[in-house]
């Protein structure tokens, strides 16, 4: 059972990594707008997608206010 001395810190470290990732995401403004993304998913059902429709999955640059 002594393995718990190693496993527990590792588990907590993994959790810490997730927290750091969350903090970075918040600081980059990914959570600034929580209302538009739920509307945007509707658009994937588009009948005839056009240029520019699917190439912007991620945020290419940040809004102001860093």
């Amino acid at each position: 059972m002594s393995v718990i001395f190693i496993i527990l810190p590792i588990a907590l470290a993994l959790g810490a990594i997730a927290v750091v990732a969350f903090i970075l995401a918040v600081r980059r403004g990914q959570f600034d707008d929580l209302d538009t993304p739920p509307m945007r998913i509707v658009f994937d059902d588009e009948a005839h997608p056009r240029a520019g429709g699917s190439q912007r999955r991620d945020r290419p640059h940040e809004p102001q206010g860093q």
Partner: protein
Amino acid sequence: MTTISARIPASLVAAAPCAHCALPVPAGLIEAGAAQQFCCNGCRTAYAVIRSCGLDHFHDLARADPTPRAPARSTGRNYAELDDPAFRDLHIRPLPGGLLSARLTVENIHCAACVWLLERLPAALGGVTEARVDFRRARIELVWDPAAVHLSQIASFIDRLGYPVHPVRERADADHQRRQDRAALVRLGVAAALAMNTMLIAFALYGGALHGMEPRFEALFRVLSALMGVASLAWPGRVFFRSAIASLRVRALHMDVPIALALGVGLGSGLINTIRGTGDVYFETLCTLVFLLLVGRWVQSRQQRRAADAVELLFSITPSAAQRREPGGAVRTVPIEALRVGDIIEVRAGDSVPADARVIEGATQVNNALLTGESRPVNASAGDSICAGSVNLGAPIAAEVLATGEATRAGRLMRLVEESSARRAPIVTSADRLAGRFSAAVLALAAITAALWWSTSPGRAVQLAVALLIVTCPCALGLATPLAIVAAVGRAARHGILIKGGAALEAIARRGTLVLDKTGTLTTGRMTLHDFAGDPSLAPLAAAVEERCVHPVARALAQGLPPSAQAVEVNLVHSLGGGVEATANGRHLLIGSLRFVRERLTDPAEPDWFTRALDEALNAARTPVAIAEDGRLAALATVDDALRDDARASIDALRALGWSIRVLSGDHPEIVRRVAESLGVPDAQQEGGATPERKQEVIEALARSGPVVMVGDGVNDAAALGAATVGVAVHAGAEASLDAADVHLSRPGLAPLVELSRGSTRTLRVIRRNLAVSLGYNAIAVALAMAGLLNPIVAAVIMPISGLTVVLLSCRSRTFGAGPCR
């Protein structure tokens, strides 16, 4: 003598839906045989543009969306000011690769289909590489290639789709706000992670407590949970300590004090027990507590931010461009920020004046209603000063800029607003008032518990006292109030009442003095026809002539007089500040102020009925409009700023709810007196001719003897709104008043005010119920602690259950939009 009281006949018959916005097309506009019907030209243009770009999918999406839509409303502007260097310096950011980026506020975004359409901009317009919509803030972020397209072209394209755009005008502290929002979210995330991980470890400890555990493992678990507990209180939980210390410093207890007390005691005793290696530790309860309290706070601030954003949007869509005359004589559209003292500006009829200025060419009338509350237009000719924010009603003028931005009269009033808001005492909420008594009671109970158990075992006595302190504080105060307020603010927003500060609800629920502005609040703020005396055959002709003018009195006649059955052929001879000379169907007419018409009469005889009607109008403080045919007086129309339809009923309802009603206005004392009288407000409770400074003074004097709610719309009310316990800005007011007010009614009329009063009473009831429920849980916890039955497991179970109950109760409560108060 004939009297006609007429309205436009309601000829809107729903027959076919508009192909663009799906609203019913008015009967007169239906084209027989056409495949698509349109309710207006805006929709027709938008439909054509969307089809030609191959974006037909918009209409499929829009049909599937149940959100009510609005007709496309393009302005047809060219947006030249967006290409001005002054705008570029302020709003456009260069990106690597020679691209430019800017954000614009977009009016009229109402559903997912709008988002879809606007984000397809790169496919529809060459040179645009990216378009991203922020739905809540009604903004679009554009990236474009300046070599291929200008921002003004993009803007007018979006406009043709039916979405007028405006430069983003953020409040000065928007950046700071955004940083705070993000910091709050980070705290929430960290608190959540720590709460879950300590809970995980706590489960192991509970298991160990029941079935036995090797001491070295137990020591490890306790040390790890202590570390996380310290982290949770030192980082996300720090806000409670900081605000508790601030509250102690000003000697005003609020609910963060008992919270900080519980957290502090829990942390201290937990650390001591961890180091000693025996005794209970409550880190999982503390971490969960921090997390739950932060959730309550975050949800509340998010809901209030929504209201603030809606107000900011209104702020953005006020005109922000000026017509500047360049040295060469050409006129250019420039952003307001580019204006300098000494510039020559042109103000077209119907536009608002962008800066304080002195008229140098032309003569006109301006409406100062927003600045002074005066409902009647004021003459302005060469040499006269006009203020930023007033509206040019008559003819185009040229003027020299005297002051811009903060230095204008409107700007100075805004500073007054800030000062009065800063001076006002914060609203003491019921939770805050409870906090003091609650802390005292909890401390006393802890002391009693310790005393009762001291004889049995001093160690056990201290442990139980500590447990009681930890388990009693929590959700009672920290979660119950914010959640009830969030639910109420959310419901209110759906009913057109935007509430910026939750504490305002409690202040309103307590009632007191309600002070109402007149122009724009009790009245519509627009001139409407009251009476028409004289030759009835002139009425439709006068309506047709006045149709061509922008003056509010002219608009009142054009809309109030019965329209002609046949087309009227109108020739304007000339139109000046005071009136208009025209021929209509070959009949020569003079329509305008008494002075204007009298000066041009060929036969100065004044008929008896005319004199009588005129006296009556002047006595009642209405504005007379004389109409002469062939140089002889032929009719008299009177207009006034009519009371809102629901004013009387709403005021009666408010009085029945226990408000003391007062009227305070900057308009002419006689008009104010008459309006107050018609609403049943006694003479002593009304005041006319009040300057913005006077209004602030009156409110401050009233506020000394009890809560005051001020309701107003103009810049002239802003300082008073800021000084009142709660400021309420009504529909379509000036941006300054929106800024100063705690509540904004986005529906026209006074009925929302009644609903606000009833809704806040219900909200207060919900808050009290939540507090009662949480205090009930606390009573159980206290009983358990005093009986010696409280341990970390029981604490960890009681807390989330009490939190959950409060959440459910808040969500189920009907506060706004639930009909009359029981």
